[in-house]
């Protein structure tokens, strides 16, 4: 978690209070606690994971549910997988792209934030990027540029325009 970076990093899943997670998402994305209902949270190394509520048998786990954020650097970074699931609850630091720009974003490219996106509405940092109401994933908005954070294996090929 931000603010606790001097704590030792342990390679085990440790439960973490949902409110601590929700507070960060509220601050950055205006997301209410209801976005996280039915989930429990764990911290391992520098990442936070969310999994459906319920008993977890005592096994040695490789992963628990979904890795939703990385706290390795500041500011913390949401994962694209998490934004695709939770992004619809966001109310600020959103970018709604049109077709051509959405395609560039899905290809992993950097681009100037289009005029129609109203740059004044975004604070520099990580943003949720939408196309036609779908949360596509995580972007980094900085100095007027929108830098795609889509992981390599989930990018579109540059010649696949006809498929969007």
């Amino acid at each position, binding site marked *: 978690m931000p603010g606790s970076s001097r704590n030792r990093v342990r390679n085990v899943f440790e439960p973490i209070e949902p409110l601590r997670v929700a507070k960060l998402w509220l601050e950055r994305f205006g997301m209410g606690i209801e976005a996280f209902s039915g989930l429990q949270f764990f911290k391992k190394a520098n990442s936070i994971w969310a999994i459906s509520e319920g008993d977890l048998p005592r096994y040695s786990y*490789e992963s628990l549910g979904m890795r939703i954020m990385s706290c390795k650097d500041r500011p913390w970074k949401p*994962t694209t*997988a998490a934004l695709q699931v939770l992004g619809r609850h966001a109310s600020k630091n959103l970018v709604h792209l049109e077709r051509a720009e959405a395609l560039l974003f899905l290809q992993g490219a950097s681009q100037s934030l289009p005029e129609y996106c109203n740059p004044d509405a975004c604070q520099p940092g990580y943003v949720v990027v939408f196309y036609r109401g779908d949360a596509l994933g995580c972007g980094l908005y900085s100095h007027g540029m929108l830098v795609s954070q889509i992981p390599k294996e989930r990018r579109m090929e540059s010649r696949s325009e006809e498929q969007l």
Partner: protein
Amino acid sequence: MDLMAPLDRYREIVPDFQAFRAVQSLPLYSSARINTLKIKREALLGRLEEAGVPYQCFSWYPLGLKLDAASPGKLLENLLGNIHIQEELSMAPPLVLDPRPGEMVLDLCASPGSKTTQISQMMEDRGLVVANEPSLARVAALRSNCERLGAMNVAITRYDGRMFPRGSFDRVLVDAPCSSEGRERRGPGTLTRCNAVRSRELHVLQVGLLKSALRLAKPGGVVVYSTCTYAPEENELVVQEALGHDDQSGQSGCPGFRLEKVVLPGLLECPGITEWEGRSLSPDMNRTARYYPHLNDTGGFYIARIVKE
């Protein structure tokens, strides 16, 4: 060289053997499962129509689609996790397992997670799916698919499935490593690596995995064993041995376990065999199901459903 020769030892057990042999060289269409964790079926079908992607729904499973796309994996709907590219019959074992929301389910050989995520969606993200995969390299694909599809109730472990620690699961799926003869239409040349010796080697591992699953199911729990191969050594003979059937007398009814009939309405199955190379197997093996590519225009699969009493 006759590439289909490894199939010839099944001449006596496969109906219409010539058609079975001939269909192997016909490529399989692409298919996908609609991921209801992220989108409703009607909404997804509407999007495919809008994008001009021709599709055809399976007759036996409303969430399965045949897709007419050159690179279905690169479709926007796949990148967004609204669909998952998955072979048609690979969608069958989770339906036979029949997991319910809130249950505790173990997928013992999980990667790349097609069946894991199908189980998760059948459970509506409630309860827990423990997805086990010993290979670190294969865990990456499993994790990636679970995250892309938004499966929030999946926890991944990396045990040797034969030595998975104690547990009490409502349902256990053993989609075992196998010689994959049933994948020839997907990956031509698969058959050239198949023979009885290899199947007998895999048999040892498969029996170990199924015995482990039987141990890990709770009383009343369900264990499903599946492979994508035709070899009896990897199918009926595995179930027979794991259940401890007396193979000499052909006596049925292993105490503590019951084989249940596998039927998926809309798919043509053949009953599991009860005799192989002069050896009688338990008559209950006819409750297991063999799926052949020429009967359903699919790949090949074998599925057994066992209830722990």
